[in-house]
């Protein structure tokens, strides 16, 4: 009984921390972008513009909750919920520290892959239900992009799995006690990074919403908190990918002196910042470039990495 309460407490705490982080990320990203673009970013609401987050939240909660009359109402409303649910569920398998995880699943990595595949439904349904040509185009792009990048995302992780010999994320972290996988699986890391950007639909891979061409892509017709959920979903996605990079390639909570959970968050935070830096640095590729890059470069690379890793593991005789 006590275990269940503790477990629930941990789960709720993780949920709270995640949502708070994603909200804070809005401020963080804008400040960081400002920093890298020689300007301030939000600096009027409160000290350093910190009250921008509550202000944005008040705004987004008090906006008219409106659905266009031509939309497919139930699907239109369900879509933003799907993204929140799938992304949050993915966090269930992330070990923040020894014992601090919602579920200790032995197929944790597969669960993550499954959930991230499901999240595309949110976008496709949202774009479809909006009955807007831009939304539909955005949704089409999203599904196509996810489909293409999911393939080698999974493949890129198989190297890690082979090295660790487990799908369980806790085991994978434990397997890095001697050497972080970012060294033996450097190619896998790069491939996963690219795929991770594509999965979280962040610049340079934000083609589904590409403001310049598609207005706002799949969420053109969304406003108020429904839009907010897409928004939060995107930031949660950043955290998720950063947390996974940390877990899979950078030793998770492992680190000297500081408590494990602090290590975990420090590493994750670094990758989040790096996400923002990428956004500040790169332009968006053309759609066909994106796809041909995925299929013609990344997929062979991932296969190669898999084959070499497999070969090395075989040769090492394990």
């Amino acid at each position, binding site marked *: 009984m006590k275990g269940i309460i503790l477990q629930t407490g941990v789960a709720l705490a993780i949920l709270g921390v995640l949502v708070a982080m994603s909200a804070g990320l809005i401020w963080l990203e804008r400040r960081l972008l400002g920093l890298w673009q*020689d300007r301030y970013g939000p600096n009027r609401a409160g000290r350093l513009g910190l009250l921008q987050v509550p202000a944005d939240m008040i705004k987004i909660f008090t906006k008219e909750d409106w659905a266009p009359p031509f939309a497919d109402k139930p699907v239109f409303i369900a879509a933003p919920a799907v993204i929140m649910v799938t992304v949050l569920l993915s966090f269930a398998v992330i070990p923040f520290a020894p014992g601090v995880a919602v579920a200790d699943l032995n197929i944790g990595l597969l669960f993550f892959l499954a959930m991230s595949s499901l999240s595309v439904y949110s976008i496709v349904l949202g774009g479809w239900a909006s009955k807007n040509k831009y939304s539909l185009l955005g949704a089409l792009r999203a599904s196509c992009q996810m489909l293409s990048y999911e393939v080698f995302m999974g493949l890129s992780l198989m190297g890690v799995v082979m090295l660790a010999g487990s799908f369980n994320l806790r085991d994978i972290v434990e397997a890095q006690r001697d050497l972080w996988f970012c060294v033996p699986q450097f190619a896998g890391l790069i491939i996963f990074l690219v795929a991770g950007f594509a999965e979280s639909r962040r610049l340079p891979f934000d083609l589904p919403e590409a403001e310049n061409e598609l207005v706002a892509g799949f969420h053109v017709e969304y406003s108020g908190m429904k839009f907010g959920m897409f928004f939060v979903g995107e930031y949660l996605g950043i955290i998720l990918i950063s947390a996974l990079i940390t877990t899979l390639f950078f030793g998770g909570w492992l680190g000297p002196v500081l408590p494990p959970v602090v290590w975990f968050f420090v590493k994750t935070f670094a990758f989040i910042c790096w996400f923002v830096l990428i956004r500040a640095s790169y332009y968006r590729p053309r759609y066909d470039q994106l796809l041909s890059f995925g299929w013609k470069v990344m997929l062979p690379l991932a296969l190669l990495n898999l084959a070499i890793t497999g070969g090395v593991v075989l040769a090492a005789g394990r």
Partner: protein
Amino acid sequence: MVSLLKAMWIIFLHMFRKRETILYPEQKPYIPPRWRGRIILSRDPDGAERCVACYLCAAVCPVDCIALQATQDEYGRRYPEFFRINFSRCIFCGFCEEACPTYAIQLTPDFEMCEYKRPNLVYEKEDLLISGPGKYPDYNFYHVAGLAIKGKEKGEAENETPPVDIRSLLP
């Protein structure tokens, strides 16, 4: 590949640069004289309204925020009966100023015209009309136009000959 990393590195280094932002209400920026801000209607050097209500500003306005009605005084001088600009729609593109054949409508460097109520952004002629000639101090449309008005008969404009005597048979 290297260029990608280089780009990221350059952007990263911008962290240590000076910020370009001018913190506006505390620091006032320099506004050039040809800034496209609040629209005004100017007057001729002799003090009469310059606008002849030709409708070109209204026609060229991409957001259709100018409405006016032409009328004329007893001597044939045209002027707008009303002239309305809905600044809540105006995009300050300056097309109206470019279209204006009499330099009547001009954009000024004043942009601080926020209102809490949108109706307050609807400016009528009395709100728009200033008492001077604005940017073009010497221009007077009626001094180059052929139309006769009070105080300027036919043939009295610049570069005009006196009216033709149609009864003359001289070559």
